[in-house]
């Protein structure tokens, strides 16, 4: 049970976790933690496993097996850089014409959750994420590099920039929608 919880915590955290924090949080002795971690390492740190356990400076972390690192990098690169799907293009367009814009605003306009799409656009360098101090959440804009790649120097050189930016139907949609987190 302790072993299962440690595995799950390390997996979901996706960052190094101190053994001392595990001990404190799970309220078990150092020996129990040590034993569990050794057990996990013995099972995961084998050639055939895609996930390995790394221990460094009193902290543990799951990492992908370095032996297949190249294949993983190649896969993820291909997966991330395929042709833009229609939903991705639509999201990108909203950010171009209406940015800086928050994730909830993009989702209100598109009517669909956009977490994974935003993640992909960020990885590709098409958009930038910045913390907005007033709205207290991240806002998104297209990157300068993206504008250059499509042969535009400034946002307002996009066709119909002013008309789309100030489209009152979209503005109305954003202003009248109730908080959808309330479902």
């Amino acid at each position: 049970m302790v072993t299962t919880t440690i595995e799950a915590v390390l997996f979901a955290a996706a960052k190094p976790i101190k053994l001392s924090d595990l001990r404190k949080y799970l309220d078990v002795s150092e020996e129990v933690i040590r034993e569990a971690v050794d057990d996990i390492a013995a099972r995961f740190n084998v050639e055939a496993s895609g996930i390995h356990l790394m221990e460094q400076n009193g902290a543990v972390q799951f990492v992908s097996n370095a032996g297949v690192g190249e294949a993983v990098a190649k896969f993820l690169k291909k997966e991330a850089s395929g042709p833009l799907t229609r939903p991705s293009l639509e999201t990108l367009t909203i950010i171009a014409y209406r940015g800086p814009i928050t994730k909830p605003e993009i989702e209100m306009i598109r009517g669909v959750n956009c977490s994974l799409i935003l993640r992909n656009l960020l990885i590709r360098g098409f958009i930038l994420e910045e913390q907005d101090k007033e709205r207290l959440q991240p806002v998104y804009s297209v990157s300068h590099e993206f504008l250059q790649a499509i042969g535009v120097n400034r946002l307002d050189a996009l066709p119909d920039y002013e008309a789309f930016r100030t489209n009152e139907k979209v503005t109305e949609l954003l202003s009248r929608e109730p908080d959808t987190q309330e479902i």
Partner: protein
Amino acid sequence: MAFEVKLETFDGPLHVLLELIQASHLPITEVSLGAVTEKYLEYMNSQDVPAEELADFLVVATKLLLLKSQAILPIEVEPEEDPSTLALQLRLYKEFVDASRTLEERFDSGAWSLARATPDIVRLELAEVVTNLSKNDLHDAFAGLLKRLEPFFRLQTAALERVISVKERLREIHDAILSRTKMTFRQIAQAGKSKVDVVVSFLALLELVKQRAVQVVQSGVFDEIEITRVD
């Protein structure tokens, strides 16, 4: 939009019907549906049914009324309006409502699974921005989006218009009945354009009976319903 929030939490017509039947400890049969018809109509009258759902409530009301007495309503029953479908529909609906309890328990239990908080892809660092998009692709996508949103904008306006028409119809029928001393339900119903109109008319009639503004007489099962003003 206030009505949207309300809609999110408003029970649908089948839910109302199911609760009425269960409150009376009845099995879901055509007979039970007939037995709760009045209560359903009362519910419709007393609750502020959201504009979006009014038509659906009326469809169920139509089926209930057809079921209770096909003679009262002077309209032909089309095969797909077969009111016995309602009992089947309700029995099926109940199965999903029961199943939703299991899902709710799981949802509330805290036994969730979590995805890894952050992917490793961020470390990939694609060297440069590569795209075969043009500025016109962006323009076309935004124009397409606006077009796709059209029905959504229209939907909200249409819903409000429909409520107004239902309310107006109710008043018209009140006036029509009260302006004469005697008339038949057939005369009122024929003025309606759709089945929904017929149901609205019938609701208006029930309301007038309840207010003791009119008296209703039907001499035989398939006979006319005669409406007399109470002076």
